[in-house]
Every structure is written in structure tokens, then in C-alpha cells.
């Protein structure tokens, strides 16, 4: 075995009295991809940021991190600056905010080049152009662009280009694909892999996604509560996990093709929701043509059916749910909920329709009023719609239904974990016994171990209470787990629709096929096969 490029020993990181990382030790060898995996609060990002001295002043770091001989934790600021962007390049989670909005990409890359090399602006620009070509972007155009003119995937490529300016021996990537669409994620992972192959760059990749781990890692370090619970090769980890925690983590991962996908016979009764030729256009102003967010969509949702709506960002998923709740008016087409035509409904009818619809939002942390007790939040729909009777009893009943302690109604959201907060969100959505539940990415903000139980809860409640459900997600594995039928949206149009097993198992349309191929599977062997199949598909 070659000497380690980076060696962490006894690393502990504290914020005040709170120890977020404890006695962490691992190595990264030249040309190797090591993933640091764990759930939120496991200390994985903090560990990664500490290597470049990017933690806030309130953090105290102990231990050592040796990078080709010198300790990153004790170097002076001049050496640290040489390491940053010189020996270590860094890629962040949010490409949309990682670049300065008021400078052109060209300016920012030129500055990054000139931070370490005494070259003229012209030479630096030439280097920037090479780098953008390396990350497979249209260099001439991107150099002149401002960040807001590029997509998330393009921006992440720019950030990677900036990290590669000085051909670092090590690239640290902190959740580099979490904020991106599946197909874009697949492209970024392919790029990282090829950079390793072409430039021999070692990669330390922080992620919570076992699919990403299976796709790219050579070795895996599993963190929990700031401690290393397992270090393993990627095949070793997936085939024979050593730690109990790793096993639990792997068990809770949803992968496409592993779900039950039990075909439920739904009765061919009149559907609860009928959407016909729906079109929504947004005016953008400045003389630009209006954006067609939804373009001739027809859908039905049966009275006790779960319709999965899947698509990438900008495909029109959320616009459709906004039309159903009356937040957006359709430009054309008709929408019927329980026999009421929403395009012609009067105020009284709208009120009735809204009473029949419950919504679960994506981010439970911001969807609950932080200054209201969870009991008050759950009772709010009852108050708004003037329900009589004992609200307290109904709240207790709902809390029990979402498997929370009914005695918790006096607690505040900050006292709850993410998964518990989302249960509160579900309880609130069900307060009025809705006939339709809209769940807009209800598990995207949750850790995997929590995600599975929230999905199970939703599915159980749906069976028990038999409401219709519009389940919106970008995650095919989640859709496969909960939905009866699925509609695939692409640029405002439904490209494919049908029973889940049929659509995701044997997609008929090209776009669906690409979407299915891009979703990484938490199994390195299967993922390699899928990757090769996906390459064949795109070529």
C-alpha cells in the first residue's frame, strides 16, 4: 500500500461545549475515492471543512490532519492559503449559491488561477478556458456568463473547474450532487470519476446517499454522532457490513427495484380529481416569451389511489399542486375536485374544496410556525374552518395516528427531530379528514433512516383512511414505494403514465428510461451494470 496522501488522526472538533466530532481517524491514498457517509449531525461536513480551515471561529479542532507531511491544523495562514485551492480543491453542496452573483464566471476563475500563479490575466483566462473544457462546458459562453444565467448542473461543473485550477492532489466534495436533479447528478458523478482516472486526483466525498457511495467510492468511512463506526471497502461495506449501524442504514435505504410495488386493484369508480388539458403560463416580463410551466397535462386520481408525480426541477410538479390548491390559476384546461370545477368555482365552493385537501410540505422545519406549539399547529385547520367540538381530543387522536405521544401537543417544533416534525405536518394535513392529500416531496429533507418510517406511516394511513393522494417526488425509489400509479413529467408535459411497476420497471419512453438509469442504486455491483447500461443508452 502506498503512503497516505491525507492522514487524519485523533481528530476531535468542538463548538463550545458540544463535541461534534470525536477521535476520527482515516486515510486517503493518492488516486483513491473515499466517501465519508453519515446522517445529518454525524459530523461529516464539519470534518471536511476543518481540513481547509473553513470552520467558524467558534470551533476548536484537536488532533492532526497530515497532508503530504504537514499538519493542516497547525499550518500558518500563508501555507493554509497555498493549500486551499493549491493542494486541495473543494466542491460544495449548493452550486446556486457557491459562486459570487455579481461577477462573471470568467472573473472568478481568473482570480482563482491568479491566487496561486503569477501569470497575466490573458494566460489565466486561457487556463480557465481549458478547465471549463475539461468539465465539458461551452467555455467561451460560460466565461462571459453570470452565475444566474447557468443551471445548477452547469454551476456545479464550474465549481469543480475552480477546484481543479492547480491540479490538486486531493479534491474534497461536500454533498456535491445533493441539490441537483438525478440525471444531472449522474453526469457530475461521471465527471468526478473521469477526473480521477485522467488526472489521478484523490477524492474525499461527503454524502448521505448510499446510492452515490455505491456509484463512486473505493473505500467508505461511516460516521455516526461524530465517531467512525466502520471503515470498509465499498464492496465489503455493501456485502458484509461490520457495524450494526451500517446494517440499519443500508436496510433503510430505498433503491429502485427493491420496493414491494404490490399491485393494488383499485376500483374503477369515478375519480376524485380530474385534470384535463391543464396549461399554466407565467409571464416573465422584459419582453421575453411567457414560460409554459404546465403544457397540456391530463391526469386523474381515484378516490383511494396514490398517484406519484415524478419529474426533475422545473418540470411543473409543484405548479400542478398549486393549481389544485388555488394558489395558481390555470391559463387553459379544466380541473375538477370532487365534482367541482375549480376554474369556475365561487368563494364558497373553493372553501369547501380546500377543506377537502390536506398538504404535507417538503421542509418540516419551515412549514411549522416555530412560535406555536405543535398542538396549536395541528388544530389550526380546525379553527380556520370553524370546526366545532373538542379540538384537543382531535389533536390527541391525530398525534396517536402519526405515532407520536399525544402528550406532546404542548411542545414546540424545535424540541422535535426532523422526522417527528414531518409527522406533525402529516397530522395537520389530516386534521380535517381530507379526501385528497397532496404530499410535495415530504421526505426529501429527511435522513434515510427517518425517510423509510415516514413513508411507511403515510402508506399505512392512506390504506386505513382511504384518501386520494398526489405524491410529488423527484425520487423514483420513493415513488415506487408508495404510489399505485405514476405520471412522469418533463418540461410541463406528461411523457409517460401508468402503473408504477410497469412505468418504472419497463419504461416505454426515452426520457423515463434515462431517469430510471440515472437513479443510483445502493449496490456497487448492480450500480456498475446500470452505469454501463446507462452509457449505452445515452450514446
Amino acid at each position: 500500500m502506498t503512503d497516505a496522501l491525507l492522514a487524519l488522526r485523533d481528530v476531535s472538533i468542538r463548538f463550545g461545549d458540544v463535541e461534534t466530532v470525536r477521535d476520527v481517524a482515516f486515510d486517503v491514498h493518492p488516486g483513491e475515492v473515499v466517501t465519508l457517509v453519515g446522517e445529518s449531525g454525524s459530523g461529516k461536513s464539519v470534518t471536511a471543512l476543518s481540513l481547509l480551515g473553513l470552520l467558524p471561529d467558534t470551533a476548536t479542532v484537536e488532533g492532526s490532519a497530515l497532508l503530504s507531511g504537514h499538519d493542516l491544523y497547525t499550518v500558518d495562514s500563508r501555507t493554509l492559503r497555498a493549500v486551499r485551492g493549491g493542494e486541495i480543491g473543494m466542491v460544495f453542496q449548493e452550486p446556486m449559491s457557491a459562486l459570487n452573483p455579481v461577477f462573471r464566471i470568467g472573473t472568478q476563475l481568473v482570480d482563482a488561477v491568479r491566487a496561486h500563479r503569477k501569470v497575466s490575466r490573458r494566460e489565466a483566462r486561457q487556463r480557465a478556458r481549458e478547465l471549463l473544457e475539461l468539465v465539458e462546458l461551452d467555455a467561451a459562453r460560460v466565461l462571459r456568463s453570470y452565475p444566474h444565467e447557468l443551471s445548477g448542473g452547469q454551476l456545479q461543473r464550474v465549481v469543480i473547474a475552480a477546484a481543479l485550477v492547480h491540479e490538486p492532489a486531493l479534491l474534497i466534495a461536500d454533498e456535491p450532487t445533493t441539490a441537483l436533479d438525478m440525471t444531472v447528478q449522474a453526469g457530475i458523478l461521471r465527471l468526478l470519476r473521469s477526473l480521477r482516472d485522467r488526472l489521478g486526483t484523490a477524492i474525499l466525498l461527503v454524502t448521505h446517499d448510499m446510492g452515490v457511495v455505491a456509484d463512486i467510492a473505493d473505500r467508505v468511512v461511516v460516521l455516526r454522532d461524530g465517531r467512525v463506526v466502520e471503515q470498509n471497502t465499498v464492496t465489503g461495506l455493501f456485502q458484509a457490513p461490520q457495524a450494526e449501524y451500517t446494517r440499519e442504514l443500508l436496510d433503510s435505504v430505498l433503491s429502485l427495484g427493491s420496493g414491494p410495488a404490490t399491485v393494488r386493484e383499485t376500483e374503477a369508480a369515478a375519480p376524485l380529481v380530474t385534470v384535463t388539458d391543464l396549461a399554466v403560463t407565467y409571464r416573465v416580463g422584459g419582453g421575453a416569451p411567457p414560460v409554459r410551466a404546465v403544457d397540456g397535462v391530463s391526469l386523474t386520481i381515484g378516490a383511494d389511489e396514490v398517484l406519484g408525480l415524478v419529474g426533475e426541477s422545473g418540470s411543473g410538479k409543484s405548479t400542478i399542486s398549486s393549481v389544485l390548491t388555488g394558489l395558481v390559476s390555470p391559463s387553459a384546461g379544466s380541473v375538477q375536485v370532487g365534482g367541482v370545477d375549480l376554474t369556475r368555482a365561487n368563494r364558497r365552493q373553493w372553501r369547501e374544496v380546500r377543506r377537502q385537501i390536506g398538504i404535507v410540505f417538503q421542509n418540516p422545519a419551515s412549514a411549522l410556525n416555530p412560535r406555536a406549539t405543535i398542538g396549536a399547529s395541528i388544530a389550526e385547520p380546525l379553527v380556520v374552518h370553524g370546526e366545532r367540538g373538542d379540538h384537543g381530543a382531535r389533536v390527541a387522536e391525530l398525534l396517536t395516528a402519526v405515532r407520536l405521544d399525544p402528550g406532546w401537543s404542548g411542545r414546540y417544533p424545535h424540541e422535535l427531530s426532523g422526522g417527528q416534525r414531518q409527522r406533525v405536518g402529516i397530522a395537520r394535513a389530516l386534521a380535517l379528514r381530507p379526501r385528497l392529500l397532496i404530499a410535495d416531496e415530504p421526505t426529501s429533507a429527511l435522513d434515510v433512516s427517518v425517510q423509510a418510517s415516514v413513508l411507511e406511516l403515510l402508506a399505512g394511513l392512506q390504506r386505513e383512511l382511504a384518501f386520494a393522494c398526489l405524491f410529488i417526488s423527484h425520487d423514483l425509489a420513493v415513488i415506487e414505494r408508495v404510489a399505485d400509479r405514476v405520471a412522469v413529467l418533463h418540461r410541463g408535459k406528461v411523457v409517460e403514465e401508468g402503473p408504477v411497476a410497469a412505468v418504472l420497471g419497463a419504461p416505454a419512453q426515452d426520457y423515463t428510461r434515462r431517469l430510471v438509469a440515472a437513479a443510483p442504486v445502493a449496490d456497487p455491483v448492480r450500480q456498475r451494470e446500470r452505469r454501463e447500461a446507462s452509457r449505452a443508452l445515452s450514446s
Partner: protein
Amino acid sequence: MNRTLRFVGVRLAGMIAVLLVVSFGTFAVFYLLPTDPALMSCGKPCTPENLAVAREFMGFDKPWIQQYFDFLGAIFTGRTFGTGATAIVCPAPCFGYSFQQNESVLALIGDRLPVTVSLAVGAAVIWLVAGIAAGVASALRRGRFTDRAAMTVTLAGVSAPAYLVGLLGILLFGFTLDVVPVSGYVPLAQSPVDWAWHLVLPWLVLAFINAAVYARLSRGQMLEVLGEDFIRTARAAGLPERTVIGKYALRNVLLPVVTVFAIDLGTLLGGAVITERVFALPGLGGLLVDAVHQVDLPLLMGVSLFAAFFVVLANFVVDVLYGVLDPRARVS
């Protein structure tokens, strides 16, 4: 380029529309006042005949809406009051005529404007630079001595009334230390050194009062920007700290500051009444106060309109400047 021109064109048209509304409003308010401007020029004893003559001479006998259109027309064509040997000619662009001072309003404003512009622009430059510097320095040393000291001083600046600061300044630097002149104005063309020397104290007083807001604004903004992801990216790329702060962060700090600055400056160009009074500077503020005291309606109208013009102009400049500073705000 075409889009930019269109943007500027639309904004200019909007500006003119706003000025029309402002002028109409001002006109309505002043001319519907229960004072008769003709009384002031009617002489003593003021017989009803003399009053009627004076009214007719000044044009106050016509319906006020007619007077408004006469006023607007005069801006383009000029105006003649009375006839024959006693006629008073107010050449285009005529913004009214002060019968009490026997001078066209435009000439009166023209006399005073250089003083106000000198005072406002000089002070603005000082407070902008000092305010931003203090704010940025505070943000970078958050919670430490520099930060606390700067914020305490700015608190004093925000809360102290202008006349108090002005009088204390005169007392300390003018009389006790006797280093700068405390009043009067020397035109720039006459002696640039004396011009600046006479303005130093008023500049500093105005700057002290206004810089406080800028220091606080840029401190808060800088703290926010320093927490942004792109600052972390810049640091992770190994950029020197002076580039990270001085270029990447500062440009983002300037965005909201510029908006406030242009409007403050626009307002100040309409006349800094108190500061001008304290330092006996013959600026627009003084002219306005005099006009109010003497119920000189044409003059009051003219000065108000000019003040409004500067505010509207400042807003226009903000719109254009914002597009320059923030590419996201550009018309795409």
C-alpha cells in the same frame, strides 16, 4: 444595447410623469392656500383697485388650473408679466418669477445651487467612504473593541440633532481650537482652497450625522455576506483575504448601500436647511425658509419642484446603477 436604451427611455418617461404629478400637487397645495400673493406686492395703502391690478399683473386673477398650465407653458416659452414699460420678462425656461425679490425663480435658485451642491456632494463623499469603512471594519472585528467603539460613535451620530452637532463643532473647532472658519461661503471659481476650507466643518458635521446610518447598514450587510457560500468558495480557492473582502464581499455590500445613498444625496440637494442655517451658508435650504416666511409663492413652488426633481433624479440613478452593480437586476 437596444434593451438598455429602452430601459433608460422608459425610466426617463416615468421620471417626467412623476415630476408632472409632483408639480401639479405642489401647485394645488400652494395656490389653494388662503393667502393672496398679490397682497404682498400691492403697496400701501392697498386699495381694492390696486389689488386687482396687482392680481392681473401677476396672473393670479385666472382660475388656478389655468395658472398651472401657464406655469408649465412658461417653462418652454418664457413669460411676460404686464404690458408696456412696466412689463417684466421671464425668459424660457421660466419657473416662475419672485415679485418680492424682483428676480426670476430660476436665477434665484441658480445663485444658491452651487452652495448646496458643494455642501451636499462634499459631505456625501466623506460619509460614504467613512461610513462604509467603519462598517466593514466593525464587521471584521465583530464584538471586539473596534466594533463596539465604532457602533457607539455611530449611535451618537444617529441620535444627535444636526443643530447640536453643528453648534458643538463650531464651539470646539471654530472658537476653542480656532482652526477652521465657522461660517460663510467662498465660490469654488474664486478660490478652491478657501472654498474647501470654509466647507470643511459643515461637511464633517453633515457627514457625521449621515455616516452613522451607512456604518450600521454596511456592518450588517458585511456580516451577512461573510456568511454566504460564495465567500467560503473564494476562501477555499485560496484567494487572498484582501480580495475576498475587498472585491468579493464588498461589491455585494454596496448593493443596498447605493440605493440608500442616492436617495439621501437627492434629498440633501434639495437643501440642508439646518446645516445651512447653522453655518450661514446661502444655499437652497435658506432660500426655501425665506420663501416660506415671506409667503413668496412662486419661489416656494420653484424650490419645492427642484427638490422633488433631485429626489426623482436620484431614484433614476439608483435604477441604472443597480443594474451596473447587480447583473441579476439587468433587463434580460
